[in-house]
């Protein structure tokens, strides 16, 4: 007797699954964070050294302070998914995906935010330590309406003395107070920079009306509004307690990233279509079941990946497509086993049961060894390889669930409904191949 309700249950599950997937798949796909190799952006690995030359070791405290200062700067940039992490003992990795203006972002990150006031002989008169905390802001000059950065000093006396110094010690046109950001003794000098069209210092105001005893200072640097705003934010965030040196960097242009993603996804579709087609030709009815579980597999992997807030990279997409291969393998092992049992003359029902049972330990061993390799990759790999490893692990676990249990459940509905009793051809086994018991 054929049990029809099992077949009805099969179609119900497939329709429900199909409905759920078609409704939510686009939303999930859109919410997945793309790595910078897919959407453009850049990644920099900095090596940290203490700014204070008396200290020779980088402390954990220093690293944490640097990370939070960088974090504040990145926020000022308005990057949605920044990734800043400490690596090893003295390294910090910054990844900014989808940044439109890479140049500004790079400059903003690496500035030490070390504001200094110097005379035209480059002698230090006032340092950033004299700034009042949180005292920098964007303002517009009352006369020219140009954007300027207004800063508040802790002590008006200090600034007055500095202005007094330049007026007394220098004669025009060198009686100026030069304001520098990140002054480097080996590289910068007022004498050279003042000749340049676009000097490295921010500004060099003079004091035509005598020394100024004030704590409110305006820095005019011919800024754009964004630049002035950023400088103010950086000054408020505080200078970095360390010197940073780029030791690795990777910048991907947005259109290059997009192109890589499009062609890889296209290749993925073709590859998956080929696999599904082959499965259906070779395994007939079981191939159709495999196709359903594979669709569920891809959907679930993407859903888990989005939920984990994983970052999808190019190698990650490769891992996903390779995971399809693993999921197919689990199906193939089971189906081959079922076919074999059918050829030994077992009934469809008992071949299904024996085949599922015997293939399980094989699939388990094969998957665990691969997870082992992926785990090592995750632990030792750099960030791109890690993306690959995470995807591989998620893929293997999901493929195990869908290809073993999903496939078993769906195929079970049909087998147990008994419609296929005495019809081994449905499973790709000819009557002539069955050995007589």
């Amino acid at each position: 007797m054929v049990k029809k309700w099992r077949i009805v249950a099969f179609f119900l599950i497939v329709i429900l699954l199909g409905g759920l997937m078609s409704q939510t798949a686009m939303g999930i796909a859109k919410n997945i964070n793309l790595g910078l190799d897919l959407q453009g952006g850049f990644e920099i690995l900095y090596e940290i050294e203490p700014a204070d030359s008396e200290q020779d070791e980088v402390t954990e405290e220093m690293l944490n302070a640097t990370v939070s200062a960088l974090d504040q700067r990145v926020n000022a940039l308005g990057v949605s998914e920044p990734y800043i992490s400490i690596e090893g003992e003295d390294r910090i990795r910054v990844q900014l995906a989808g940044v439109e203006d890479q140049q500004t972002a790079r400059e903003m990150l690496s500035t030490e935010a070390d504001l200094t006031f110097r005379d035209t002989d480059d002698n230090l008169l006032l340092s950033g330590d004299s700034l009042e905390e949180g005292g920098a802001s964007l303002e517009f000059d009352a006369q020219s309406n140009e954007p300027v950065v207004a800063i508040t000093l802790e002590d008006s006396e200090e600034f007055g003395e500095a202005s007094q110094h330049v007026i007394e010690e220098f004669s025009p046109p060198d009686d100026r107070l030069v304001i520098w950001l990140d002054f480097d003794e080996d590289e910068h000098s007022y004498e050279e920079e003042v000749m340049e069209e676009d000097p490295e210092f921010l500004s060099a105001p003079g004091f035509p009306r005598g020394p100024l005893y004030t704590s409110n200072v305006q820095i005019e640097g011919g800024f754009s509004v964004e630049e002035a705003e950023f400088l103010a934010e950086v000054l408020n965030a505080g200078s970095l307690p360390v010197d940073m040196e780029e030791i690795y960097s990777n910048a991907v242009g947005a259109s290059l990233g997009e192109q890589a993603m499009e062609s890889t996804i296209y290749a993925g579709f073709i590859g998956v279509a080929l696999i599904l087609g082959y499965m259906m030709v070779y395994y007939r009815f079981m191939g159709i079941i495999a196709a359903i579980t594979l669709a569920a597999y891809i959907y679930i992997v993407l859903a888990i990946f989005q939920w984990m807030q994983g970052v999808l990279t190019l190698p990650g997409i490769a891992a996903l497509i390779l995971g399809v291969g693993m999921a197919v393998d689990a199906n193939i092992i089971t189906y081959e086993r079922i076919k074999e049992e059918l050829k030994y003359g077992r009934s469809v029902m008992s071949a299904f049961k024996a085949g599922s049972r015997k293939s399980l330990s094989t699939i388990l061993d094969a998957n665990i060894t691969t997870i082992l390799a992926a785990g090592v990759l995750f632990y030792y790999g750099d960030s791109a390889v890690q993306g690959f490893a995470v995807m591989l692990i998620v893929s293997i676990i999901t493929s195990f669930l869908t290809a073993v249990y999903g496939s078993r459940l769906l195929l079970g509905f049909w087998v147990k409904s008994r419609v296929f009793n005495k019809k081994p051809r449905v499973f790709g086994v000819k009557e002539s191949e069955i050995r007589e018991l």
Partner: protein
Amino acid sequence: MNFNFERKNINFVKHRKLFFTIPAAIALIGIILLSTLGLNLGIDFESGSRVEVMSEETLTADEVYDEFASIGYEPDDITMAGDDNEMAHARFIGVLDQGEIAEIQEHFTEEYGAEPSVGTVSPQVGQELAMNALISVMIASVGIIIYVSIRFEFLYGLAAILALLHDAFFIITVFSLTQLEVNIPFIAAVLTIVGYSINDTIVTFDRIRENMKNAEVIETFDDLAKIVNTSLLQTLARSINTVLTVVFAAGAIFLLGGEGIRTFAFALLIGLVAGTYSSLFLASQVWLVWKGKQLERRKQKEALAETEGEA
């Protein structure tokens, strides 16, 4: 459609000497290639800078070279890429600094309308990456040997690692021969193949183990050989189908995937070929030889014990 291997009398075991000779010869060639040509290490493992530019039109290496020259840079190597040669990869030996990167990016964005990608690696980081990759393969191998030894027995684990090293070394040999660039994704590909290779070998071993359990007498080498051959035939259809499906995926990525992932896919394809060879012709056969020797030793011991007992 069906593969009916079990009914055909294919004897895998008989030609095992030939099967061992081929990998041995390839290993020899590999060692010679590596010591002469070496590998074409990308900047991921050495140090230097890489600039990737893309234009809307077809480019030539000379054009790109001139563009770099016009802003005062001299690339050490330029390779063209893309379907219509609209992309170019330029390599510099030194590490470009922030200002230089800015200048290059600005210039090419203006000229070609797309922002170029720039990567730099300092010597120290490059060496660390290579070391980490090597260490991870070693650790993975040890982990796999331990796992297989627990689930099966030590001889299976040893044979599986031999197959694994064969596959990894084969990929490296081909990359030395073709002088394709070795980069981080290459390492990922080798490690994936390591996973697949072990996966493939385990499936066959699993069947050998099962057939060993069901066998009534295993006294001679021929008994063992028969079991190994039957197991190989029983799993052959699965081996072929699995490799075919993965080749579909890797092949599609190789032919149609993005530029950056092409070498990765190529390494995978080579690895799959090597992996199939090693699990069919190497791992099980090596295990057979070792197990056969173990069997003989045991027999000798028993015989010795018997003669002693009689005396």
